[in-house]
């Protein structure tokens, strides 16, 4: 990594990072990029999030779905761990709770492939400061 020497540099990096993320989110490509975020705080990991994340990566690869699987911190729904957020291009992100291997299949087969919703969605119950 090169050092950031000034505030202007920092802003440039911010824009680059933002546009990378935007590109990912707004992809108009039909073989769109799906974003999967797995909650990997202590609560999630204790409930098996590590295995679920690995499983997601393997299954998506096997299905040849173009997707980015990343980890994130605690979403606050500790009662429903492991939690996974799935964002399809051009759509609002959805959070699924109590995700086990079966649920992974259901999410991939129904939601990611066909856009059907599956049971176990956790409704968003908060505002962020950007809203």
């Amino acid at each position, binding site marked *: *990594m090169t*050092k*950031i*020497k*000034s*505030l202007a*540099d*920092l*802003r440039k*990096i*911010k824009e680059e*990072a*933002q546009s*990378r*993320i935007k590109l990912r989110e707004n992809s108009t490509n039909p073989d769109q990029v799906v974003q999967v*975020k797995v*909650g*990997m*705080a*202590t*609560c999630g*990991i204790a409930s098996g999030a590590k295995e679920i994340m690995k499983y997601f990566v393997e299954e998506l690869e096997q299905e040849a779905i173009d997707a980015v699987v*990343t*980890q*994130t*911190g*605690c*979403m*606050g*729904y*500790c*009662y*429903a761990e492991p*939690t996974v*957020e799935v964002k399809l291009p051009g759509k609002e992100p959805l959070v699924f*709770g109590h995700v086990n291997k079966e649920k992974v299949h259901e999410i991939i087969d129904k939601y990611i*492939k*066909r*856009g*059907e*919703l*599956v*049971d*176990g*969605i*956790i*409704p968003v*119950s*908060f*505002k*962020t*400061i*950007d809203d």
Partner: protein
Amino acid sequence: MTDYKMHLLICGGTGCKASESDEIKNRLNQLISDFGLADEVQVVLTGCFGFCEKGPIIKVLPDNTFYVQVTPNDVVEIMEEHIVKGRPVKRLLYTDPNSAEQISDSKGMDFYKKQIRIALKNCGFINPENIDEYIARDGYQALGKCLTELTPEEVIKEVKDSGLRGRGGGGFPTGLKWEITKNVENDQKYVVCNADEGDPGAFMDRSILEGDPHSVLEAMAICGYCIGADKGLVYIRAEYPLAIQRLKIAIKQAEEYGLIGDDILGTGFNFHIELRYGAGAFVCGEETALIHSMEGLRGEPTFKPPFPSVSGYMGKPTNVNNVETFANIPVILNKGAEWFSKIGTEKSKGTKVFALAGKINNVGLIEVPMGTTLREVIYDIGGGIKDGKEFKAVQTGGPSGGCLTKDSLDIPIDYDNLLASGSMMGSGGMIVMDESDCMVSIAKFYLDFTLEESCGKCTPCRVGNKRLYELLDKITQGKGEEQDIEKLKDLSVVIKDTALCGLGQTSPNPVLSTISNFEHEYKAHVHDGKCPAGQCKSLLRYDIVEDLCTGCTLCFRNCPVGAISGERRAPHFIDQTLCIKCGVCFEKCKFNAITLT
């Protein structure tokens, strides 16, 4: 690909299930196939919407229509009117209690304003191990702005104006603390982040460090710039390995970018951050004990003054702030003090993160504006009490705090209101208790904790708390005597008055608070030998009702200690001297022939 035009989200949370959301789902599915719309409309069961008071809830996508208190009988109308004709069923919409207006689109509902995420804004959103994602979300912009555009005085003024108070529990104004440390002349100063989260049931600091470590690092650097420190230390307990690992990665990445280190952003400002590990002692959350522990000394508190701002780590001026306090700083500087001070109550600004634990449905982390009521937190966001039981009390402030009862459900939560009602904010752990929790046992649990954590330096804490514990234990054993409750009160007051440090001075709080709110429970134990909550095993008695017992031998076969005897098809008996009150017979009996008194 099936192309659903409409989705009906039905709440499958515990509260809504109890009011027949399953039945609603079945009826809807039936109607949808009757109307031949199975390929166009999909019904989905979701997790808790957190609006259980108004359940069952149905949300219709894509138009975001939000129906409340739906019954199975409303299903036909929703189907015929909304789904077929596209006209929302007005009588099932949510009515805003303030404006009396009906709100169709859920985004306009007050309910969504109940939680605002400031300290948690990146938690569960960014990858904590990737600094670019933090930068994309305005990360390190506040630091850049401070270093290049603002003087330390201006930054401190902004923090003061925001009204931010210490989130570790004390509630000391953060800006003022910075100013005091700044005004002390010295060649070396330190910024310390207190990540020694020790209250049972509190885990918000851990989650912030695990989910958004850079926000804390950025704020520490800003604090260093303000007070004139070039070194920051994070004191974190070794039992938080994941938080430590994420912090290490974050520090390394920030150093590689030059956002921490020498000559940050070419401004000549140097700031280095190191980690210091604690062994998980509760008292080390107290700042003087924390500093001693960092110095390699025993983690014991010392008298203030001198305050750490004057003489702290290695005798140098040290500014100690809590994780959550720091996490608020970058947002305040990015959005402005005025924006921040509009959130919250008159004397407590901004939001507070709470860790909900205990007998509550939605165990987890929430962040609400100061001034939100306990009722909103427990019922609207927390989804109410587990298994539909009755709410009894909530413990806030950990072992130093107190319990709040039904009567306090409607007070707006802030530092001062909680103190006035006999508890305290503390770090933000909320342990919810229901009717099956015995308050004497709860007090005993906290005393057990403080006993373990007492350093033993002063007599009131070392001996006094032990005696308190023994008295409580005696009461839960059913051996309590008339004068024991008074003894508990007297001894508690003495310990509060004479103990050396905060740990000892606050350790009797759970005892005093449970006695003042639930004296009848103490009396029931002492006078009647009964535990109203049915938790104190020594006070329970299981009996078999002869008339109801069919002699099926199920209890006999399941009793782990052979306390039950009797012939097949004849009433059985429990030998009270052998019974260990495990309750297995009570659970197994199919004829309700076993009573619990």
